């Protein structure tokens, strides 16, 4: 266990070095943007709209009492979506998608000796293979999460429109009340931490696969499980330290 953590930090050290040829790094990065980032818009859109709608309905159900002002529904939905649903739930979903993608891609390269082939050419394989993936995740995931927040709030609005729990006008009024920009920063900080966890852990696991195709499958599962667990743990740590 301790050795694994040590190995992880050694690999991170090898990864974060200046790429020898910037033009090649830029090409790799563009590829990963598409491969990891753009291809995730679909799943993120669908989930965000539905989660936002469910959040609005849940809040409405729990505050169905004349004592609460109607704006509370828009307000609470916004807070839930910004503080937890988009950054954490969507990140866990992305851990499933990106984590398995990264771990299985690197694992396959390892067992088919493609990584060895790079190494004998004198290439810093961690830097060449993992760095573009981490940077792509760090740059792209905030975009996905902001997009997800927007869609989540639209999902809540759609729920109001379709179920008339409250009028869409009151929902929007609620969205706009008591807004503290820090909640968005908080969401973005969490996203960056999660993006790093997903890409580096899945990268570490995939890079160190030993054996054959069965191990690649296991590594891909392990990449998802480990990064999801760490996301939850860091969610707690960050919420505790940043919000209180």
């Amino acid at each position: 266990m301790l050795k694994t953590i040590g190995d992880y930090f050694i690999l991170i050290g090898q990864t974060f070095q200046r790429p020898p040829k910037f033009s090649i790094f830029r090409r790799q990065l563009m590829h990963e943007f598409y491969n990891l980032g753009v291809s995730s818009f679909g799943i993120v859109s669908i989930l965000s709209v539905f989660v936002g709608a469910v959040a609005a309905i849940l809040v409405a159900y729990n505050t169905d009492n004349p004592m609460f002002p109607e704006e509370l529904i828009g307000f609470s939905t916004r807070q839930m979506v910004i503080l937890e649903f988009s950054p954490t739930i969507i990140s866990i979903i992305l851990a499933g998608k990106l984590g398995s993608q990264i771990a299985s891609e690197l694992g396959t390269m390892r067992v088919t000796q493609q990584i060895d082939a790079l190494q004998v050419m004198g290439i810093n394989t961690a830097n060449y293979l993992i760095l573009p993936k981490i940077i792509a995740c760090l740059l792209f995931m905030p975009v996905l999460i902001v997009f997800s927040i927007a869609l989540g709030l639209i999902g809540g609005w759609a729920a109001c429109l379709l179920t008339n729990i409250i009028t869409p006008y009151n929902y929007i009024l609620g969205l706009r009340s008591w807004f503290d920009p820090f909640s968005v920063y908080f969401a973005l900080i969490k996203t960056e931490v999660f993006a790093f966890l997903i890409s580096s852990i899945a990268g570490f696991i995939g890079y160190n696969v030993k054996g054959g195709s069965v191990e690649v499958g296991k590594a891909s599962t392990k990449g998802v499980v480990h990064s999801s667990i760490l996301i939850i743990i860091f969610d707690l740590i960050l919420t505790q330290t940043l919000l209180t």
Partner: protein
Amino acid sequence: MITVKNISKSFGDKLVLDDISLSFRRGMTNLVIGESGSGKTVLMKICTGLVEPDAGEVLFNDIRFSNRSEDIRVDIRKDMGVLFQGGALFDSMNVEQNVMFPLNMFTNMSYKEKLERVNFCLNRVNLNNINKLMTNELSGGMMKRVAIARAIANSPKYLFCDEPNSGLDPVTSEIIDALILEITEEYNITTVINTHDMNSVMMIGQSINFLYKGQLWWQGNSSNILHTDNEELNNFIFSTELTKRLKNNK
């Protein structure tokens, strides 16, 4: 020239290489033969720096390579071409990008120059007009040849081939053997070939090292290998029904 000095390597308590010393000469095809599990691949991995030896060292033209930092090794690695047992082509790239890869990484050639070199190397391995195919669209023999083209793209001084013709039909494997021999002599490369194919041994065995149970058991070449009275080597050479019958008829 590559010098292997007193190399030993164990995995757990299994001694795989036991005090191996030999040298691979320039402009020649140097073969390492031995049955499956005799340590050929491990020896090649030690020579290419993918595995570190427990004892001993490997020298490239008298410069020590084993157990050194990657910064120092890089200079030697730039002169190294390796053909892996499974080809190890990059499956996210097409044929042209695979062969061009070492040129992209280590030279400042223009795209036009690189393309010329790629086409030259592909032509050299008798592959034409397949530049845009992806690696999964190639046959096993074509993959091996693309891998050879990639290995020679950056004009290596040292070429390592791990079982270049395993899994290929006799005709294709002869073509590949002939190709490796030709390239070796033409460019004066130090070529190391792992094989257990007797046909290759006879065709390109300019220098032969026989590994047996982790030890260097016999050294020679294709003209004296059939006349040896070394028992283990004879068992290895005449292991198939075909060769046994040929020998008894002789």
